[in-house]
């Protein structure tokens, strides 16, 4: 639709005469699109005016409802985000005028100054006359403040930055809805009661604070990428939200190398999404995936980001993981993958990020570079270390190496240990087949592994 301009008159009473504009479907699609693209911008800008997250959320929701009505009659505005922001902010101002007690007893702590270290946000979309400042980074950093528990950071980010409902978040994390609602409420309460400021951290704190933000986005991705429970291998909704968030961060902080690294990592990993399960929804490992069906556009976009993420000082953990993902993406086949270079990258990654999960991944790569025994020795060491107790991919990786070494009974036992640790039915099905193979049939392993 065209030239509707930005002149929001939200609310059933504010609408103008029906201009007979286009079909409702089109405006509904535009509202849905604006929900996905603009929610964070609209809420972040409204929070500043409302001074209270709950009030801001309410006003933004109302603005979207009003958009459904107004856009269907007057057409979709040229700048939907600005229309929605103006509508939501007006509602907030009206609400505050009507009812002084709405001024939160513990208001959101808004800082007037807006210096943003290490980033150069793009110009905000033009509103009516005034330029609405882009507060999305404030919103993100507030949601991911280290004083909030990780699970609260994740829930708040989905709720406030992505605009998901509590029901949707509860479903995504397989948590009862009241539990998720309580988690979100508690986190919001802490933001106001402890006075977590609505601001982007200064240069000194930025690296740590940014790492927390990136960790939340990455966690969202991995939860969707390999759902811990449920029917599907991949939860498309969570995966796409995570990529959206990474793209948003990249646009807001174009100079941050780790942001670039995270986006590259997600794109390169997600390029394989369609091939991670077969036609029957059964899990396919990297070795067995049809590489011709990998998303070449996503790979190209991811690869283009990697050099900039690695260059200019010691690379961070997301940049290094992206570099590893890039080697996989570029390899013509599993066998022709440059496993030695992958092991080397894992060594650098371990120095930057001494995580037992990284050690496990390194062991798997080592097994491919130097043979299963080498990898198995590392995995057994990790087992003794104990930090990965309860992590399902440890026994799964061990089982795979044992299977390739022909130690079938031990392999079956390890597969069973992995099975006991997952509720994801695609994974259980995969492990069940492996148990049958190793426990049931004689002869050398018949899967490529």
């Amino acid at each position, binding site marked *: 639709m065209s030239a509707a301009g930005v002149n929001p008159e939200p609310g059933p009473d504010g609408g103008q005469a029906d201009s007979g504009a286009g079909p409702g479907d089109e405006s509904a699609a535009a509202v849905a699109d604006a929900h996905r693209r603009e929610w964070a911008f609209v809420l972040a800008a409204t929070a500043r005016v409302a001074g209270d997250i709950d009030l801001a959320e309410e006003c933004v929701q109302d603005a979207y409802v009003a958009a459904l009505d107004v856009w269907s009659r007057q057409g979709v505005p040229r700048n939907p985000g600005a229309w929605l922001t103006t509508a939501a902010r007006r509602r907030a101002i009206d609400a505050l005028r009507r009812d002084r007690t709405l001024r939160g007893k513990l208001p959101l702590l808004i800082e007037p100054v807006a210096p943003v270290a290490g980033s150069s946000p793009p110009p905000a979309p033009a509103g009516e006359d005034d330029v609405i400042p882009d507060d999305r980074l404030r919103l993100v950093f507030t949601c991911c*403040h280290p004083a909030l528990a990780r699970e609260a950071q994740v829930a708040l980010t989905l709720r406030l930055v992505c605009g998901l409902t509590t029901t949707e978040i509860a479903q995504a994390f397989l948590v009862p809805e009241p539990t998720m609602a309580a988690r979100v409420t508690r986190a919001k309460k802490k933001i106001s009661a*402890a*006075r977590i*400021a609505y601001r982007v951290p200064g240069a000194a*704190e930025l690296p740590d604070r940014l790492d927390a933000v990136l960790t939340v986005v990455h966690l969202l991705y991995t939860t969707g990428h390999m759902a811990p429970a449920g029917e599907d291998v991949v939860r498309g909704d969570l995966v796409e939200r995570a990529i959206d968030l990474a793209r948003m961060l990249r646009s807001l902080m174009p100079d941050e190398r780790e942001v670039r690294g995270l986006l590259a990592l997600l794109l390169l990993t997600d390029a394989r999404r369609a091939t991670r399960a077969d036609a029957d929804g059964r899990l396919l490992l990297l070795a067995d995936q049809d590489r011709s069906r990998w998303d070449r556009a996503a790979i190209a976009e991811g690869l283009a980001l990697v050099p900039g993420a690695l260059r200019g000082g010691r690379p961070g953990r997301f940049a290094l993981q992206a570099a590893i993902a890039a080697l996989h993406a570029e390899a013509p086949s599993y066998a022709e993958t440059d496993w030695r270079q992958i092991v080397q990258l894992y060594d650098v990654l371990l120095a930057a990020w001494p995580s037992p999960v990284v050690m496990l991944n390194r062991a798997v790569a080592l097994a491919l570079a130097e043979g299963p025994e080498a990898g198995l020795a590392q995995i057994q060491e990790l087992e003794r270390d104990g930090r990965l107790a309860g992590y399902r991919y440890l026994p799964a990786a061990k089982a795979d190496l044992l299977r390739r070494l022909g130690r079938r009974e031990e392999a079956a036992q390890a597969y069973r240990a992995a099975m006991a640790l997952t509720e994801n039915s695609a994974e259980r099905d995969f492990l069940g087949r492996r148990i049958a193979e190793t426990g049931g049939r004689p002869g050398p392993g018949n899967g490529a592994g």
Partner: protein
Amino acid sequence: MAEYLILIYEDENAYATASPDVFQEVMEAHNRFAQQVGEKGGKLIAGNALQPTPTATTIRGDVVTDGPFVETKEALGGYYLIDARDLDHALDIAKLCPARFGGVEVRPIMVFPQG
């Protein structure tokens, strides 16, 4: 500005067996901290060390018993009440608070609406 309580939780045994030198160091660290709060742009409103938990008496209902409210390895051993701009500022200050045998907890003071 808002008020925050910095609660210092430490292992009492560590103090019970500490040398005079250690005590001296701890005292100096606390004196330094009192100064640093102001340098950081905050305000020190109050602060005290507590006698160790064997001196504590607990009352539940009207039953009086010997000992602290909760028996833990790291016990509340002192506190500071400070004024800070926001949580980040309070945490920035609290990071300087000496607690070599434990750590500190930062709690916002509840503000009751007037009227």
